[in-house]
């Protein structure tokens, strides 16, 4: 997740100081990605260095409101129209783990799959409970974020079923590979 672009999108609606940015970022992502204030200020100072935002005057409480520059606006517009490519996403640790598990000797792959399945199901149960608990009228941004995570958990569970099916078919076809 690009914190930089998220903050720029918020600043494109008007100038804000750090704490405001943090609160609005968390509100619009359903508190799914908690930010600490340090991350916010680090990101702001990098964006200031890159000419994407500009600091304003300090107010009486010592807070500095940042506003978006022309270059910043161009950057956030580009972000919205550019699809995210696979290479920008973090590497899938689970896929790597399973790939290693099938090649490494002495690993009970079925056990690895089941442990992950139980953990992911628990995540899905928790997400479903959060979604059930949202009072109508549902906050659209929060609902979409939750749905995204629900679909990801579902996909992961389906993929684990698939892995298990492939493995059991292989072990039937090549019983000699079994230790």
């Amino acid at each position, binding site marked *: 997740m690009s914190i930089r672009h998220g903050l720029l999108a918020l600043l494109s609606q008007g100038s804000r100081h750090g704490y405001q940015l943090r609160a609005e970022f968390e509100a619009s992502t359903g508190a*799914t990605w908690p930010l600490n204030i340090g991350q916010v200020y680090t990101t702001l100072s990098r964006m200031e260095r890159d000419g994407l935002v500009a600091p304003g005057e300090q107010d009486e409480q010592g807070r500095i409101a940042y506003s978006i520059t022309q270059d910043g606006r161009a950057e956030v517009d580009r972000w919205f129209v550019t699809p995210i490519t696979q290479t920008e*996403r973090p590497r*899938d640790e689970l896929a790597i783990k399973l790939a290693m598990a099938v090649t490494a000797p002495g690993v009970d792959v079925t056990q690895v799959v089941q442990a992950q*399945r*139980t953990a992911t*199901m628990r995540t899905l149960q928790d997400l479903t409970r959060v979604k059930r*608990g949202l009072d109508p009228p549902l906050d659209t941004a929060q609902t979409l974020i939750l749905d995204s995570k629900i679909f990801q*958990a579902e996909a*992961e569970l389906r993929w684990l*079923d698939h892995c298990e099916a492939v493995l059991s078919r292989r072990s039937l076809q090549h019983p000699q590979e079994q230790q």
Partner: protein
Amino acid sequence: MIDRDPSPVPPVAEVDPGRALVVELADVSRVHVEGTQAVHALKEISLNVWAGELIAVMGPSGSGKSTLLNIAGGLDRAASGHVRVEGELLDRLPPSRLAALRRKRVGYVFQDLNLIPSLTAVENVMLPRELDGVRTAKARQEALAVLDEIGLADLAGRFPDELSGGQRQRVAIARALVGERRLILADEPTGALDTATGDDILRLLRARADAGAAVLLVTHEPRYAGWADRVVFLRDGQIVDSATAGLVSAR
């Protein structure tokens, strides 16, 4: 890859220590004979379902999910082990008493919902009550109350072929709920329904559990299993693992 950052999850409902045990399976085994081969459909399964609990059963086809459900509801008998429904031991119950227990205490929802086409929605829902000997007027009143509860009161007079797939399934659920049954068994109740309609079905089952019923749901859809308090994973007739919502283990 799932972002596993902690989300604010509401606490799991407090478990009432005085709540009732609705289904108790103790070391239940079931063997199906296929030709000359004995297939172990269930191997010494133990599972308790408490009032207020929604339990999902998942597993590959042939893992024993439906057999488990049928034995819990007295539609099939265990070869060994004990089955209790609301304290009553089913093992040696004569067929007539077993049938009465099924009618009065257990509600079934199947994928093929078997509504009777020549009866209206409300008449379909009334049917099990009338079979129980409840007078027609009272049965109708109860059926209308359940249909109202699930938002189908307006469609009470329609015949099954005048309803959408999702509406028909909700009528089938109303039929399973009528008469204050404490145990609801649902075998793939979302069948071929679209996601939104499937969610409606789960919302109904969830509400019923929250109102104090014990619900046992067989599903192959992770999305719907996500509604459960506990997800039990079956493999080759055995429970291999279970996932309990929240961090606190239910039992």
